């Protein structure tokens, strides 16, 4: 099994498309960090215009945590595309290139192959998130340094810098869980298709489509909205609630786990029986 995973990882990291994800994250995060460094004061002044009449803000409001929060907000739509780019290709890519014919005629269990490919794709997703954390932290530290974070949702809260690390850690872990759901869905679509484009576009279309439908038809879909995993993609923000308790996020985590398991086991069941015609 370990050998199968290392083979799959080798294949993933031998493909140029794998590095598109890391490259895109580097460009986007760098652009945000540098952009905020240059124009951040004006931007924050505009945002805080209404509040500055009633509050006096002291200290570094633009700091590595604040920018990290902005990055998390910005990337929730980009990262699924980058995840799907690789995970959507894991099975469909083999079908498309005809290489299933040379690997599945070897004494390899389809179940083990499915598990190892998924784990390799999952590890890629993990590395993508770690890269995002690393880049965000390094850029933030160099350009801004630490400080307290101002969070504006339905209320304005200030979270001290010593209280932020665990919140960011949990937010990223939850983000990783959501991206695992995206990866598993993309993997499932990949099993259905003999062409990588379908699963990649399909994943993005489903995420955007469900999100748009949920937003536009919120009143109509209200009874089913709690069952869509897309409803909870931004739940990482809950970790920045000053009165955060685990019960606030437990349902969201459960829904993500249910989707991950459902997509994975359907993929496994389907691929075990699939006729390789490509």
């Amino acid at each position, binding site marked *: 099994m370990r050998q199968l995973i290392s083979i799959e990882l080798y294949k993933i990291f031998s493909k140029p498309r794998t590095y598109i994800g890391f490259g895109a994250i580097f460009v986007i995060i760098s652009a945000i960090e540098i952009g905020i460094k240059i124009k951040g004061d004006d931007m924050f002044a505009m945002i805080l215009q209404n509040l500055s009449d009633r509050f006096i803000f002291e200290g570094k409001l633009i700091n590595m945590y604040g920018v990290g929060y902005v990055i998390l907000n910005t990337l929730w739509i980009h990262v699924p595309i980058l995840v799907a780019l690789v995970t959507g290709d894991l099975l469909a890519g083999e079908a498309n290139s*005809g*290489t299933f014919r040379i*690997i*599945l*005629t070897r*004494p390899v269990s389809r179940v083990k192959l499915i598990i190892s490919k998924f784990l390799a794709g999952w590890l890629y997703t993990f590395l993508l998130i770690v890269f995002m954390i690393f880049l965000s932290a390094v850029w933030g530290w160099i350009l801004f340094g630490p400080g307290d974070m101002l969070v504006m949702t339905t209320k304005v809260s200030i979270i001290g810098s010593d209280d932020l690390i665990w919140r960011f850690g949990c937010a990223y872990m939850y983000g990783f869980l959501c991206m695992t759901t995206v990866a598993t869905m993309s993997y499932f679509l990949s099993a259905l298709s003999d062409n990588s484009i379908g699963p990649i576009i399909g994943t993005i279309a489903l995420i955007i489509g469900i999100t748009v439908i949920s937003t536009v038809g919120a009143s109509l879909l209200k009874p089913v909205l709690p069952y869509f995993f897309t409803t909870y993609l931004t739940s990482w923000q809950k970790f920045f609630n000053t009165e955060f308790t685990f019960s606030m996020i437990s349902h969201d985590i459960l829904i993500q786990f249910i989707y991950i398991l459902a997509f994975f086991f359907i993929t496994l069941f389907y691929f075990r029986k699939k006729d*390789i015609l490509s």
Partner: protein
Amino acid sequence: MAPYIEIKNLSKHYGDLKAVDGLSMQVMPGDIYGFLGPNGSGKSTTIRMLLSLIRPTSGQILLFGHDLAVDRYQTLGRVGALIEKPDFYNYLSARKNLEILGKLSKVRNLNSRIDEVLDMVGLLPRAKSVVRTFSLGMKQRLGIAQALLHKPDLIILDEPTNGLDPQGQKEIRDLVKSLSQESNITILISSHILFEIEQIANRMVIINKGKALVEGNVHDLINGDDRQVTYIVDNSDSVRSILPGSAWEPKFQKSSPDRVWFRITKEEIPMLTAYLIEKGIRIYAIEPVRSLEDFFLQLTENETIN
């Protein structure tokens, strides 16, 4: 000795389409077994079922005496295969591709074995080249190298000469023959070209519409007594005029202005030729068409018409 491949009443249906329909055959150890049929006759579907890429609708496949459905891992470890066109990870080198496949097959002393098989197919100097840069012929040879990598007892080749130029086709045929003779590997080779099977195989089956039509020893099938012979002459009327009352009259089949067809045995060809010359007929050419070839041509012509 048990057959290396034993197929019993194998069928694969896609809805109403019967891709393979009650096929049975046996490949014995040491055979180069020709699997012949026109395009769309069910060859590739059968081969994919033999390699567990496709699940049969019904029937049984025994490889080395073991049921494939039960002992998939044990049996596939002894089989090497090249199915249709040779596809690889194009972004990796030939060596890296073989390394991945060798690890999947748990090949011992993998690096030296890779050198061995690459050398065998003449690709050792290109071992580090990315497969994307290979010609079809080179990919085909790499396909055979990967099939040989784990020292299989049985190799299954699905139309291995497809798309190759005549020189490439001959190279593959020579390679297949040498594998059988020097390495004592049993080979199942599919093709839609009778000539190819005739050149390589010792036993064969012809299939069409998923059913076996003829099975047996290639020599016996090809050199059967019954054959149609075409005589190209200056004027077929002169031939027809000398036939009545002769021993050749019942053997006459049909004629066109410059051609006359007889159904005769191999031994009768020189006798009839001598008779015609003696009667003053000018013969420009003699074209024997063997019954099997005739039969196969009919199959493929029907296929083309359809």
